[in-house]
């Protein structure tokens, strides 16, 4: 006698359908993200030139990286130098811009749009545009400096000015952070300012005692995103320096950012194993920095909810 099958409960059926619907993402995530990550971790311990199977498994890539590769330290130094200047600069500019655009000024929507639009445009097109702006003879930047009697440098062709030029260029996308700051500023209850005014607080006191503390979670978020983004810096350098004497990372290795060096190892030198080791070291560095910032957040990030729960 055939045993009757027990009907599936509604919950189980819904779960099954749920898994089915999210399966494209899960399959994609496993095959295209987790899979390659695990593969790159394995490759990082081997000599792997893409064409032949990986060989010589061991720690040699990591040992060489830390003990016998000046370009690793050089590229890390350039990236760190860029990050140390560009991240705070972007945080301050983004915040200042948002603060200004949170005031009651005529044409507010227009100005917000104007400052936000550049952050929507990114990548190759923007790099080419900035290549023109930086042109020492015909570029608008040196023309502007010339109005004040300043002879602008050869921004991208000079080893001394290439990184400062890229830092300047990073301000182009400050509108992305600005929009997040703006939403944060608008969520600060006006009652706090009114109360402060009644207590006799001046504008600076209101700014540093109310605005900044209440905006600290947004600053914290933008800082984390900024650190991650800065250590992934690649496209702009690649586009702007690939046509220069000395090639990508030039002139004179002055723009050999970490990811540019990683890319060269992977796709120019065919050292995919070594490039994988570089990628994992980068991952660890970014992870440590992020954890450090998270750990420090207890001392400077103010969460209203946290206070209420105490």
């Amino acid at each position, binding site marked *: 006698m055939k045993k009757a099958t027990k*009907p*599936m409960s509604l919950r189980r*059926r819904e779960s*099954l*359908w749920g898994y*089915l619907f999210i399966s494209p993402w899960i399959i994609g995530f496993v095959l295209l993200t987790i899979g390659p990550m695990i593969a790159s971790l394995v490759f990082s311990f081997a*000599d792997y*030139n*893409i*064409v032949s199977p990986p060989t*010589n498994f061991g720690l040699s890539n990591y040992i060489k990286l830390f003990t*016998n590769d000046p370009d690793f330290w050089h590229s890390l130094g350039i990236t760190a130098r860029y990050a140390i200047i560009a991240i705070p600069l972007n945080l301050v500019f983004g915040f200042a811009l948002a603060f200004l655009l949170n005031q009651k000024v005529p044409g507010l929507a227009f100005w917000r749009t104007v400052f936000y639009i550049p952050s929507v445009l990114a990548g190759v097109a923007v790099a080419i545009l900035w290549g023109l702006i930086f*042109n*020492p*003879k*015909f570029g608008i930047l040196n023309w502007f400096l010339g109005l004040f009697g300043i002879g602008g440098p*050869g921004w*991208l*062709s*000079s*080893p001394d000015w290439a990184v400062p030029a890229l830092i300047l260029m990073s301000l182009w996308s400050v509108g992305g952070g600005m929009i997040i700051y703006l939403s944060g500023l608008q969520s600060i209850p006006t009652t706090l300012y009114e109360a402060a005014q009644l207590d006799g607080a001046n504008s600076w006191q209101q700014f540093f005692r109310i605005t900044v503390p209440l905006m600290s979670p947004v600053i914290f978020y933008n800082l984390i995103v900024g650190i991650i983004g800065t250590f992934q810096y690649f496209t702009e350098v690649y586009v702007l320096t*690939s046509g*220069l*004497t*000395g*090639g990508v*990372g*030039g*002139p*004179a*290795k*002055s723009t050999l950012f970490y990811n540019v060096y990683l890319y*060269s190892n*992977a*796709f*120019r*030198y*065919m050292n995919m194993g070594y490039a994988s080791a570089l990628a994992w070291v980068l991952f660890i560095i970014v992870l440590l920095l992020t954890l450090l910032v998270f750990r420090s957040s207890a001392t400077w990030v103010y969460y209203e909810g946290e206070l209420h729960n105490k």
Partner: protein
Amino acid sequence: MLRKRLYPIFALLMVGVLLFSACTPKTGGNAPVKITIFVGFGAGSDPDSMEALNAIAGEYNASHTDIQVEFMFSTWEEHTSKFSTLLAGDLAPDLAFPIGIQGIAEFYDEWIDVSTYVKRDNYDTSDFYGASLKLLNFNEKTIGLPLGVYPSVTFINEDLFDDANVAYPPKQYGDANWTLQKMVEIGQQMTLDENGNNATSTNFDPTKIAQWGWGGWCGPFRTVPGKFGGNPLGMSADFKQAEMNTGGYVEGMQFLYDSIYTSHIRPSSVDEGSTFTGMDFTFESGKVAMFECFSWASYAFPNFTTAGNWNVAAVPAGPHGDVVSPVNADTFAIPAHSKNPDQAWEVAKWLMEPEMQNRLCGIFGCIPSRKSLASGWISNMAAEYPNVDFQVFIDSINYMDATPNNESWVPNYSKVWDATENSMSRILSGDSNDVQQVMNDLQAEVQGYLEEYWAAHP
């Protein structure tokens, strides 16, 4: 209820079946062999060339039933990653074409030796320039047959020479007076500041140069030392000891430095990045009197013409009497991973036939490697540029740096390439004024790459 439960399973099965059928290779009884030709190692991937090559493929396919060809295009920037990915995915193309010495060196172990085919078919190579054949021999392995060569010549802006009332450099090789030293002398006469003073004048202002006498050599670092008696390899014959901080290397780079900062005849790379923006060659500006470049600069000839009346002259002799015309070359190469090397060879032979070679060189801008095609090439070029003496290009072939070539294989090829180019950029940009120190740094870096290579290839 059962039907409802079966739907997801049925859907998954369908997806699986579709994926499986899409990934299963098609087989056929007497289907023609498809030869995939990878284009991206050099010329050929601009829209006009792609169209012309696809037309050639169409002609081949219309006249052959056993083999069909298909071009696969890649940009220069992506060629390394795309080609290596194809190899890794067991999807190796059957031919790389056109490919230069650099492309061959980048994938040095990947090409088969075609000498067995040459011998088997008793292929007649007598029509090729001898040096162009030598270019394709690598440690007794023959990679391909020469399609075309790109020798270097000195381009001159005759209008600027006429304005300065200075005699043109000689077109004929063998003129003992045509040396780099003489070129500097002429270059200084042709270099003018904004007030019209030339570089020999005491009133000359090197901070306000309006016209340069010389635009430099357009080739990479390793084209330089040969002119100063150095070996383009930059290392010992066994590739174990770097030799880049002595002799022709230091002398050549010092010449380059002096040409910018002492005689002022050449723009620095900072000047190049400003005054000459948007141009592939400074010569296109009409503000440069002479420069030396490969014949592949032919794609910019229309711009040269816009800049003024131009012509070509012989390459000057170096300080030790060496007359070296750096050369690039195009050939084909058959990947070792090709599944159809025999058919690839047949296609390659067809591409190397005189008529096709003529046509392909017309597309890529090379000078056909067959001696018999030289006069035809000159006539074709002269029809377009009647003022230019194209015989000089042909004469330059006799002075090319074939063995070793400036692009010849060295261990850790791309790393050495980047290191040498970076060193040259330090000098061209003014990042360092101590040439010996720059070359010492390069020596140490390249030696490190050689040791790294030999440690991995004992």
